[in-house]
């Protein structure tokens, strides 16, 4: 019987590894995700077979298994179906937090009932400590990240100040004290356990709360890596090798992904975690100031220029997603394409709220995948472009990042839209972007601002183009 479980476990691990591998290629991604889901089902099956063949599973246990499965599974399925594509980062954070919570609860169960798990001795206690610590940080950190992205929570002023470092250090010391106490007493310290739970939960909040919205995706990715670590620690607690492998894989892969994301934003992980919000430093660090020399134009003028263009590049940003304008945009580009105008989309690595988020949103609106071009590909093409339409993007098209060494954005890779013949920036008002930094692009001679909500402007634009007879044969 044990042989069967080992075989199933091996297959499950193999499929999980293939799943993670496949998820990093566009063509294989969907199948890889399904493969990983199958692997997970196999792993559960293997575990059930193992216990059915050895100790058996009591009917009370079945009841609670089915209860937990139905509640968690149904809620998860409903959430996955209902959530809009624009809220994807928040959703990932929520799911991730729940994974952390699960590891935390298992570790607590093992700490209170060591006999049931056969979990005694140094190894078990250390695993419990790690699982509780990482699980609690993952849970509260993810929930804070979700609440901040949803706009339910803003950062209190003192959290922006240096004082937060002392608070966080104090919390970390409290965690350490609790951990040492627990380990010294062989896990038999209820006070130590609760201190660890409370201090690590607060630490998760304290570390995540000051981080600005633009950096949040990196934090979510890092927390995702943590939940893998928590799972691996839980694997040590219950003595499951499969859990250890899978947790370690997710932990390591998550770390790599976090690093890749940081590179895309030209931010180091350290500055994301300890530097605080980008906007806070922007006020002090130059780059501010009032706008002069703004040219604004009507939707009609914009339509006339578009009609005469041969090559048009769309630069979508989060503003587009917020306005839910991706479908209207698709109609506009359809009519332009019908008129023989070449349309491409320039996707900055961090367009949207998370790398790859914008691709998902545009795919939802039926934009052909081949028309999305990455920054390195599209940048050399801007000088040969007639019209650039910037929709709800701001910091990613700020030329300051290349020209002004004093700017907080300096060094961040940006799209060189100013090299195109004409740039239209659709924006609701002159308010600053995520980073709170003035955008020099808006003052350039070849830039015109079209003020208004992205969806409304695009709707009007569509009307104007129709009147001009663009795209009708």
């Amino acid at each position, binding site marked *: 019987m044990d042989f069967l479980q080992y075989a199933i476990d091996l297959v499950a691990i193999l499929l999980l590894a293939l799943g993670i591998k496949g998820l990093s290629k566009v063509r294989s991604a969907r199948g890889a995700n399904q493969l990983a889901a199958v692997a997970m089902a196999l792993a559960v099956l293997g575990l059930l077979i193992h216990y059915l063949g050895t100790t058996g599973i009591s009917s009370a246990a079945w009841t609670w298994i089915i209860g937990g499965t139905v509640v968690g599974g149904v809620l998860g399925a409903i959430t996955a179906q209902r959530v809009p594509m624009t809220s994807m980062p928040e959703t990932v954070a929520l799911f991730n937090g729940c994974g952390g919570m699960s590891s935390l609860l298992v570790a607590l169960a093992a700490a209170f009932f060591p006999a049931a798990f056969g979990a005694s001795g140094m190894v078990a206690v250390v695993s419990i400590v790690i699982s509780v610590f990482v699980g609690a940080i993952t849970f509260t950190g993810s929930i804070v990240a979700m609440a901040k992205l949803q706009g339910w929570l803003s950062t209190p002023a003192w959290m922006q100040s240096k004082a937060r470092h002392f608070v966080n250090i104090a919390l970390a010391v409290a965690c350490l004290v609790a951990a040492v106490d627990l380990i010294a007493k062989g896990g038999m310290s209820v006070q130590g356990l609760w201190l660890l739970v409370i201090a690590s939960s607060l630490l998760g909040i304290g570390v995540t709360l000051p981080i600005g919205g633009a950096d949040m995706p990196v934090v979510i990715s890092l927390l995702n890596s943590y939940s893998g670590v928590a799972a691996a620690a839980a694997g040590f607690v219950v003595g499951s090798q499969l859990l250890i492998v899978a947790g*370690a894989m997710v932990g390591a892969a998550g770390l790599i992904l976090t690093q890749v994301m940081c590179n895309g934003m030209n931010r180091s992980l350290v500055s994301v975690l300890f530097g605080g919000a980008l906007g806070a430093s922007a006020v002090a660090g130059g780059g501010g100031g009032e706008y002069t020399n703004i040219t604004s134009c009507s939707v009609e003028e914009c339509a006339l220029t578009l009609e005469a263009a041969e090559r048009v590049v769309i630069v979508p940003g989060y503003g587009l997603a917020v306005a839910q304008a991706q479908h209207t945009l698709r109609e506009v580009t359809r009519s332009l394409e019908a008129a023989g105008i070449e349309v491409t989309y320039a996707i900055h690595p961090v367009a949207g709220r998370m790398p790859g988020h914008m691709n998902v949103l545009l795919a939802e609106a039926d934009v052909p995948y081949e028309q999305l071009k990455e920054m390195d590909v599209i940048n050399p093409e801007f000088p040969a472009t007639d019209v650039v339409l910037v929709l709800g993007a701001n910091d990613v098209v700020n030329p300051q990042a290349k020209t002004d060494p004093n700017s907080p954005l300096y060094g961040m890779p940006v799209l060189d839209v100013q090299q195109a013949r004409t740039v239209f920036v659709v924006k609701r008002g002159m308010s600053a972007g995520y980073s709170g930094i003035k955008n020099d692009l808006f003052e350039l001679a070849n830039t015109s601002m079209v003020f208004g909500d992205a969806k409304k402007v695009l709707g009007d634009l569509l009307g104007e183009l129709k009147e001009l007879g663009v795209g009708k044969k």
Partner: protein
Amino acid sequence: MDSIFVNALWVLLLGSLLGLELIGKVPPTLHTPLMSGANAISGITVLAALTAIIKSNGSIPLLVLGSVSLGFALFNVIGGFLVTDRMLAMFSRKPARKENR
């Protein structure tokens, strides 16, 4: 050091190395789905939660803890895989559509 623990450490080490190797290059397009998919896999703590329930030996607090833990983990797993699939479905349906045109 008992051998089971040493074995487990080896497993941890090799699993970590595997994870580091698996994603060397990821196109930015896939960052969000990959994060979401990896996140679903981290819900593998279902195994730990199931173990807790099965080994509870009728102890009600342990059953409850395990069951709640199982609920959280499955919320992560089922929700995570489904939402990843929803995202990826948008990429993969494109070529099929194009042929229809």
